[in-house]
């Protein structure tokens, strides 16, 4: 199986599958359990909010499902790939094709323009022909509503505009999964609203979106909410509809 292969739409199949996942951190005070024997499945096209207190393990969970980090125990399968089998470089390549990442602090490259930031993932992964890329990047900027800012540097953009560029960047390689860690944490409520609407549109268009948020209003808008506490899932709004775990 081609581990870094392209994502094939498979209907309503499971795209994220964490089974009995534990994550321990080595600390000077001893082992710290950040995620404890956790099970979580996410189906294609879902829009999931992950909530929980600070330190509950939300970012750790996202790191595991994006192959940024490895679980101490348990299996993580995303978009048909068993992540523990990937080397560092394979993981990077796999991520480039299958995951769009969005961060609280945007993490745009400061010396590249908006459109160049969007071109970068295509450049790294080699997706789309070179002649197609620029048109596609501009189209993505149009989708997030800032096509007129294409040639500005990140420092010349507002926080909301920067996050829109980051979202457009996450879509560059047309990944099946979009993962955002507190994407509105740094934005005012009106801008946050617009960003969340964008995620909703993406989910409607068939993408799977997993988003960590502290904002209860935003979480309440989401079709599914997963709540973490001390590394354990304490609530999942879908539990009634679908069983959690086994």
């Amino acid at each position, binding site marked *: 199986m081609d581990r870094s292969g392209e994502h094939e739409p498979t209907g309503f199949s499971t795209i994220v599958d964490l089974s009995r996942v534990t994550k321990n951190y080595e600390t000077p005070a001893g082992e710290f359990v950040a995620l404890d024997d956790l099970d979580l499945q996410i189906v294609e096209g879902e829009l999931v909010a992950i909530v929980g207190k600070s330190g509950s393990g939300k970012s750790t969970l996202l790191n595991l499902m994006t192959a940024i980090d490895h679980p101490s125990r348990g299996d993580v399968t995303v978009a048909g790939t068993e992540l523990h089998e990937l080397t560092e470089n394979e993981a*990077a390549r796999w*991520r*480039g094709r299958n995951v769009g990442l969005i*961060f609280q*602090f945007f993490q745009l*490259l400061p010396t590249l323009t908006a459109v160049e930031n969007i071109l970068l*993932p295509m450049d790294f992964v080699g997706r789309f022909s070179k002649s197609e890329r620029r048109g596609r990047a501009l189209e993505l900027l149009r989708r997030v509503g800032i096509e007129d800012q294409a040639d500005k540097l990140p420092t010349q953009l507002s926080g909301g505009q920067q996050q829109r560029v980051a979202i457009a960047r996450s879509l*560059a390689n047309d990944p099946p999964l979009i993962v955002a860690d507190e994407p509105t944490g740094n934005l005012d409520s009106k801008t946050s609203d617009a960003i969340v609407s964008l995620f909703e549109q993406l989910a409607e268009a068939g993408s799977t979106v997993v988003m960590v948020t502290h904002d209860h209003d935003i979480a309440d808008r989401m079709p599914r909410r997963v709540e973490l506490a001390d590394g354990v899932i304490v609530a999942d709004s879908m539990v009634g509809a679908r069983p959690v775990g086994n």
Partner: protein
Amino acid sequence: MAGLFSPLRLKKVWADLWANELRTLMSVLAVTVGLFGAGSVLSAYAILDREIDANYSGTNPPSFVLGVDDIDDGLKPLLVDDLNFAAVELRRTEPVRIETSDGQAEAAQLRVVEDFESLEVATFEPERGEWPPLPGQLVLERSSADLEELEHAGPLWLERSAGGVELSVAGVVHDPGRAPGWQDDLNYVYVSAETFAQFVADSPNSSVFNEVYVVVDGDTADIVRNAELASTARQRLESAGYSVSSVAVPPPGEHPHNDQMTAVLFLLQAFGVLTLLLAAVLVAVIVGNIVNQQRRQLGAMKAIGATGGQITGIYLMLVLAISAVAVLPGVFLASAAGRGIAGFVATLLNFDVTDNGIPASIYVVQILLGFAVPVLAAAAPIWIGVRMSVRDAMDDSPAGSAKRNPSAHVVSAQRVVGRVTMLAVGNVLRRRTRLAATILILGLAGATFTSAINLTSSWLATIDAASDTSQFDFDVNLSEPYQQQRVEEALVELSEVNAVEGWTETVVSEVATQSANADELLLGFLNGVPAETTMVDYPVLDGRWLQPGDTNAIVINHEIAQDPHIDIGVGDSIILDTAGLGADKNVEWEVVGVVKQVGAPRRGLDAPFHMFVNVDYLNELTGNNNYVTSMKVRTDSPSADAQAVLAPRLDEALSDADIGVSALSSTGDRLQILRDHVVVIVAFLGLMAVLAIVVGSLALTSLMSINVLERRREIGMMRAVGATGGIIQRLVLSEALIVGLLAWVVTMVITRPVSVLLGDAAGQLFLRSDLENVFSWYAALVWLVVVLFVSLVAAFYPARQASRLAVNAVLAFD
């Protein structure tokens, strides 16, 4: 698959380079300076390598030289026709004295040639004036110590032991095959056989020539074969009835001052490598800073799919771009400096650099170095960046967080000492590796700088110590042996003369035995010395000095003991050809001691080899009772001025008494020449020190601008809570001064070993002796001033940058 390079990533590299021009400029300068250091030596080497061939080898140097006293017309055919040597030429070499019409007298080496127009062996070229010299004319070699005075002094009086003759100067020649005369206070003059005949008009039967220069057939570079052929030639001549007094087999292809060139180039090379290394450290520091500063970008790029190879590619392009800008000026400057160095070394060897061209291969090597060294230097920081996980890279804890900050404990003392200073101390200690590298670079620069000053003091102290070992002010060489009493009486006429001592001084050669190879035979001065001499007190390195009652005991100087071609030490015996002195046969001597005789006179020989024996025993052997050939004269006032006045009066007193003088040298003059040698060395070290200081200040400027950059937020905070631009500027300048002070401390720690190392190298090079080491506090003080000044200059721009950071721009920076 997506390649390692792409236009988009190149665009990022380009933009990153321009995002911090100062840092980019520093790295470009570092590579340029490093390349300059290494490239200039490479270029000089390439030029010299070729020019040695063109100059020295071009003179067709002899494969061996035989000393034969009774040369006649029948000798040459024996060697040319019977033994098939490629070239055979007769010469005569002997010490003479030149006097100008206004009474100035100088030591010289006279060389008589067969025919100026058909020189074959050890050739030389006319440089200016008439060529060839007519009968009654001489030519001077251009490296002669007193060329300026002699060339236009009108007719010169040449005085040899058996009378003199007046000759006019026809012109100046260039003889690259000999050690430059100015280095030994010696003049070289050349005359034809016809002119020389005027000297010997009264004894027409004596032979004109006393040396046979031979170039062997076929391979001339094989010293063993040359020595064998020399021995064959000697046997052939001896069986034909000639008496061969000496055999010299010089190392093929080696200029007499080859070891000087080797030593100079070695020092230069070491320095070239050092600058390149320092530059590499600087590049590593700067790239490390770039990688560290771009940690989050690294994380972001990996998060969106960049592989390790692609990340490597980005930083590789960055380094290659820096190299690409740096290589051209680096190579250009290196070529200019390389030509300068080659010219300088050429002067040391009396070469002409006929062709300044630097071979294409040297340019290629420099360009390769210019790219490869920075890439290698950057490999470690790039590797660290590539290895960093997305999580580490995105880690939000600020750079230099509490646990990494060793200055935490200092902060409590802030109230006691000035606030800005304490803050500066804390900041300086923040990044230890980078700081250590900067301090080390500056410290090394300081060591070079202080060594140059220390070396000067050491050199002068060594010459002073050497002058303390001889308590005479004049060394008078007589044209032939005279009754000691007669000479003494003539000299003590002068009231300034305090004490005199009669010596005998003769050139002798070692006689070949089974244990001594022909090419290792010693040719030097045999000094007959009163065992209880009051004129010299040479430090004894091994064994002992002469004692009254010594018979065949001989003491040699360190020049002999340390010569790589001669293997004689205490306990060895040596047979000297003393037949020429009038002894019945060659005498075997036992070496009882080695003394250090710094700055021994060369007097026309190839090396300042001196041996000392008991004059009473020597006289016994030769039957020359109470005859002397050399007088050591001590006077009331040893000042150079007094000596200059006294010299002609001594000369006059002796000639009034009908005593012939072949050379009269004042100790002061000779030592002054040695003192002047230090100028060459100091010029050299000075150049190195300047280069090192440039690299050092580059390092400091980079360090400061990197620190400022990394603390933009912090500086912004300080400004936000009311710090003025002036305070910020003072803070950065204080930090630089602290770094300068730390570098000074490092210099103080390493200056001794470095000074000793360089001093010994220079001492061995010019005196074949270690120096008396002197460490001057003056050097330490001057360096303190220089390093503080350099620190301020280096930090000026970063400080200004820091003070101009606008609060909002800084806080927005990510």
